[in-house]
């Protein structure tokens, strides 16, 4: 088979190799001496190959190699003619050496169209620039505004500004016109459109853009885009929160009877359970609230793929004594649990069967541990660096502040999980700017950042206030969190909440710092009452016989679930695969009921 000089299987426009019975597509294929190491060209090649097989005439004619990725932790992006090879091309550059950001925008001679771009250190403009480049959208009057740091609003590209030919999903090659056609053909929700066009079912990178296009097209057609939480309540989470609070509603049944229909579902039940917990902080496992909790909340653990649970005790601020470390090790050994350090500076113990949870927690609670709420939409962790106690550079005691904050807000139920971090100096080793609440020490106190996020859609926190003393810091965090709990949508992280908050950061500062809504006393009182009513859910559970009874695999037998099987890997257990279970591999570790 013909190979390229530097590797790669030579293919023609139909993806046929030199052997007429063999096609090659994707990264192994060499087309006109080029390798295409991206997924979208791979799909395009597949289309060409299938077309050739079935007598069609679709050919592979190269592909757009624009891409963004992370290289050794640095975000980089490249679009189209990144190197100004087009005749008459001109460029704009923005170079911010201190922050390690470089952006270049290549435009045509008339400065009407984007030809290409290079982004290093910050690729947040990638989507917009790509749409400009791919669709030949005319540039705004000052093209440089597209890459300059936005002092205010950079001209964002709304769904309506995109031409019909705009590629929305490059994995499945879905254009805006395909989405419009699908909607005209009867699709009336995001899910329908996904099903009909496959858009956003590849890498998922276009999810937000797709939703914008779909919502905007639906609204144009007079379809009211429903904000209802599910089929049982015609209300948003904020509205339900308000109804519960104003009417003093204390149970799901009461709310369903007065304001909903049907029996509820896995969407509205946990949402209402969380609202009730945020308003009253009742013991989450009270008989009447129990059926509302999502399964992780009911069993106070994180269910894994085989139905076992992982256990994450709280390690406030990531500070742990040798005695407690040893206890975790001993428990892991006794119950044959897989151990892994989490990203939130604590230790996760995997592979506990449901009936083992109460006795494991009995040991942990006796050793001074509390539940870590890793299973809950609640405060997870407050990460910290060692701070001024040990570090040569630290200017404040970040560990103490982290522990105090974690102990204050532990157990707080919220629309989604909440993560904090506290850094002891401006070097920011605790990565506080990527957290919902980030605190960074200064010579004079603390800088407070809010609404940052890591994960799927990273967002740097906004600097909310500077040089705060500890007391003011806590007051501000009280108010921000309580305002978030009251007004955010179900499963809306603080970052998305902030992006959707009318008035944005300035508005939130006005509410929290200037008390513009005259709400602060109430927010603080509510937080204080939640803090005062905190209890460790595991401690309460193991002390109650009726609660313990629920942690059984079988109501009529002490047997263990025979489907839960482990094999050893790198010195620890992991769940056996389906194949390993079928083969009955002799590496399986017998697990005794203790």
């Amino acid at each position: 088979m013909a190979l390229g000089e530097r590797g790669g299987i030579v293919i023609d426009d139909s993806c046929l190799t030199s052997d007429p019975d063999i096609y090659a597509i994707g990264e192994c294929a060499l087309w006109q001496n080029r390798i295409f190491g991206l997924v979208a060209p791979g799909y395009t090649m597949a289309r060409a190959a299938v077309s050739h097989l079935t007598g069609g005439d679709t050919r592979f004619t190269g592909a757009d190699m624009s891409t963004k990725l992370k290289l050794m932790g640095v975000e980089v992006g490249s679009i189209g003619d990144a190197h100004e090879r087009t005749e008459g091309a001109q460029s704009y550059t923005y170079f911010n050496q201190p922050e390690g950001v470089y952006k270049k925008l290549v435009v045509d001679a008339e400065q009407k169209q984007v030809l290409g771009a290079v982004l290093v250190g910050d690729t947040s403009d990638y989507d917009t620039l790509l749409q400009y480049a791919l669709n030949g959208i005319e540039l705004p009057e000052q093209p440089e505004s597209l890459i300059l740091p936005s002092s205010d609003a950079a001209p964002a590209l709304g769904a309506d500004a995109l031409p019909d030919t705009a590629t929305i999903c490059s994995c499945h090659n879905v254009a805006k016109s395909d989405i419009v056609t699908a909607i005209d053909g009867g699709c009336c929700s995001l899910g329908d459109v996904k099903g009909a066009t496959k858009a956003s079912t590849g890498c998922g990178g276009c999810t937000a853009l797709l939703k914008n296009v779909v919502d905007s097209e639906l609204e144009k057609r007079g379809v009211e885009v429903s904000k209802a939480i599910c089929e049982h309540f015609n209300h948003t989470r904020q509205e339900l929160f308000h109804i519960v609070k104003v009417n003093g509603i204390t149970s799901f049944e009461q709310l369903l009877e007065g304001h909903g229909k049907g029996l509820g579902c896995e969407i509205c039940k946990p949402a209402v359970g969380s609202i009730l917990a945020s308003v009253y902080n009742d013991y989450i496992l009270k008989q009447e609230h129990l059926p509302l909790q999502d399964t992780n909340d009911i069993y106070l653990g994180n269910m894994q793929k085989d139905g076992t649970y992982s256990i994450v005790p709280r390690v406030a601020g990531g500070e742990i004594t040798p005695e407690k470390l040893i206890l975790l090790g001993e428990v892991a050994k006794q119950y044959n649990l897989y151990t892994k350090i989490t990203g939130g500076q604590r230790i996760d113990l995997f592979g506990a069967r449901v009936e083992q949870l109460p006795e494991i927690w009995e040991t942990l609670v006796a050793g001074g541990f509390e539940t870590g709420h890793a299973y809950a939409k609640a405060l997870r962790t407050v990460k910290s660096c060692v701070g001024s106690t040990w570090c040569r550079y630290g200017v404040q005691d970040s560990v103490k502040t982290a522990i105090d904050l974690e102990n204050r807000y532990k157990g707080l139920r919220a629309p989604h999980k909440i993560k904090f971090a506290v850094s002891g100096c401006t070097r920011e080793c605790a990565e506080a700017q990527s957290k919902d609440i980030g605190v960074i020490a200064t010579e004079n106190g603390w800088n407070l950042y809010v609404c940052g996020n890591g994960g799927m859609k990273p967002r740097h926190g906004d600097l909310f206030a500077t040089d705060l003393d500890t007391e003011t810091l806590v007051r501000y965090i009280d108010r921000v969190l309580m305002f978030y709990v009251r007004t955010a949508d179900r499963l809306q992280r603080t970052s998305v909440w902030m992006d959707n908050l009318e008035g944005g950061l300035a508005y939130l500062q006005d509410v929290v710092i200037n008390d513009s809504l005259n709400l602060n006393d109430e927010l603080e009182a509510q937080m204080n009452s939640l803090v005062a009513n905190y209890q460790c859910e595991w401690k309460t559970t193991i002390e109650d016989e009726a609660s313990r009874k629920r942690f059984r695999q079988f109501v009529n037998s002490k047997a263990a679930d025979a489907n839960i099987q482990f094999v050893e890997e790198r010195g620890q257990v992991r769940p056996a695969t389906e194949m390993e279970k079928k083969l009955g591999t002799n590496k399986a570790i017998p697990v005794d009921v203790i």
Partner: protein
Amino acid sequence: MTATTQLAAQWHDVCGLDDLVNNSGVCALIGEQQIAIFSLTIKGEQQIYAISNWDPVGKANVLYRGLLGSIGDEIVVASPLYKEHYSLVTGRCLERDDVSVLAYKVKRDGDRIFVAVE
């Protein structure tokens, strides 16, 4: 696959009424079969349902730990793993045609709960 039990079904005494958790599930072991038993209060009356505990999508014995509710008129449990809904009456999966679970007959006699299994 039909969801009714065979002719030779036998009633098995699996637990007491007070072992059930209202609006929630428990699991019984009969031979090697795991059976999820749910108790719901609908319009003031207790209803009891039984389906297989095996989640055919997640491939784990977890359905008894799912959340109960309704989708339209169908009374369902949502898989705790990937959230597919299964009818408590027929065992049908509402999202997928290629999977379903068995539904079992269940009855209450005094303060004991019985399930019919082949």
